[in-house]
């Protein structure tokens, strides 16, 4: 986790420094400063999440002397092998977007289908 924080935190600092330098040389043009600032903020948020919320995370991959048996079988969790919802989410997303432009009826139906599919996908994920 330390390496993760190092790279995300380092990238955030880089973004902030670049944003500041950009503002100094091109302050009349706000777009670049905003984009670089948002980038730095997003990376800093991720690094801060890792520091604050996951500081006690015990990842077997972080221990150089750990044996494979410590994270095998049920210790590792259960992985699903099939779900029909992802393809339905994609189809309903297309219907919602295209419908929004060309046909409100298709767009509205696609949006309802998308919400239903996402809800079912979430419910299925919560079970397994």
């Amino acid at each position: 986790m330390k390496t993760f924080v190092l790279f995300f935190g380092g990238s955030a600092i880089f973004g902030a420094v670049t944003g500041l330098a950009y503002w100094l040389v091109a302050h009349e043009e706000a777009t670049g400063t905003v984009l670089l600032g948002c980038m730095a903020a997003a990376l800093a948020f991720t690094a801060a999440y890792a520091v604050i919320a996951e500081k006690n995370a015990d990842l077997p991959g972080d221990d150089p002397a750990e044996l494979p048996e410590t994270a095998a079988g049920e210790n590792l969790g259960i992985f699903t092998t099939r779900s029909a919802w992802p393809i339905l989410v994609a189809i309903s997303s297309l219907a919602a977007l295209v419908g929004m432009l060309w046909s409100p009826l298709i767009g509205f139906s696609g949006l309802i289908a998308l919400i239903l599919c996402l809800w079912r996908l979430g419910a299925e994920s919560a079970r397994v």
Partner: protein
Amino acid sequence: MIEWLTTTNHKKIGTMYIVSTLGFFCAAGVLAALIRIQLAQPNSTIIGTHAYNQIFTMHGTAMIFLVIAPFAIGLANFLIPLQIGAPDMAFPRLNATGLWLFIIGGLTVFAGFATYGGAASAGWSNYAPLSEITIGTGAGEDLYLVGLTLTGISNILTAVNFVVTIVCFRAPGMTFWRMPIFTWEMVATSILILMAFPTLTAVMAMVLIDRHMGGHFFDPAQGGNPILYQHLFWFFGHPEVYIMILPYFGVVAEIIATFSRKPVFGYVGMVISAFAIAGLSLGVWAHHMFTTGAVSNPFFSGISFLIAIPTGVKFVNWIGTMWKGSIELTTPMILCVCFLLNFLLGGITGVMVASPPLDYMAHDSYFIVQHFHYTLGGGSLFALFAALFFYFPKIFGVKLDERLGKWFAALFFIGFNVTFIPMGFAGLEGMARRMSTYPDVAHLALLNGLSSIGTAIIAVSVVLFFVNVLVSVRNREPVGNDPWGGYSLEWLTSSPPPEFNFDELPPIRSKMPAWDVAEGREVSRS
């Protein structure tokens, strides 16, 4: 069939990404051939202007959004869990959702050809207000915007999945600093995707709002700002170049180390340079806008020059890995050597156009077409085929024929250089890009004729590649776990791997667990 449509297994998802990107590659290749048929002679009228605009727009769009970047995502889907010793990706359903958004998005973009006004025709960069008010008024443009929005969301979902999988699902002992270079490159690539793609999705939505909901973000007549579009697009667009190359840097590092029988030279430098390239690439977007006169040219020129340093570090690493190694010239290795030669030319021409005075001369000329084809075609595409030859046995359990493979590599390399070297000279003689025809002046007829001959050679080589696939699959000679003598974890499992990847993992005590096992090195379990 239903099994494949509903699968959430990372290997099947990776395989479907790879197969679908090869399908899009064939479509993009046909479009490229049409471009070269049109330009083979001066004053050609074979293809009309509007059709030509659609063809080059869709060729670029397909290669960038539907072939080079998503192939790497497919390969990473297949490889990352295997390389870090995980049974699957962290979020299998999210992974499948990303795949289907990509496939449906890609087909939506191509569906534009079936509409009355034809496909999108404002160039792959889809500049507004051109894409809003001038020529991009048809349904094809809408489908382009919707399709790219879906593929953009797909990329964001997949990048989140990669980062979480790599952080949380590494096998015991697989510390960050023991991960293969390809996995490291995918961490850097995922960060780039997460920073860049939301901007693309936002700008596509803004164009849709302008087109359908009375917005005026980019219409100067109504107080909008077209330069804003360029800023937002290139804040995505330049990192996208590195999204398309960083994974292939990883592939090249893996292949060169395997066939030089040496560990990667300068492993830490390789990792840090990947992140340096990723970081710097987020600060160079407006070097595509030098000639607008609306950006700080010294700032963007300076950072663009800086990128050459970490890229040079990578070249030193690759050559250092080969240095005094026991080099075996297999097809993947030959393609990697071709990659080094081509990418060097792409990099050097990139440094040239990072200088604003030179860029003013070369901007929107065929010199630029040559430059980016050497980085993304000569670079990424050669590494893509190297990856196909290298990982084909692991993915499909079949090794591609080496003799046909070497013929493919030779023809592809010759065809590529015959196509794109003349383009640089045509650009220097003033030939503008995206023109459907050109006058018979200077040496343009000769140079374009050569380019078209080169494209025909590339077409033959690609046909030969698919013949190789058919012949090899039909012969189906069995391969073991490790047909190449690879060093990373994926070579310790069967080809193709079982559903959850490993029946048993060895203790991981170095960066080269497969070589540790093969050489019987001490891998103490205590």
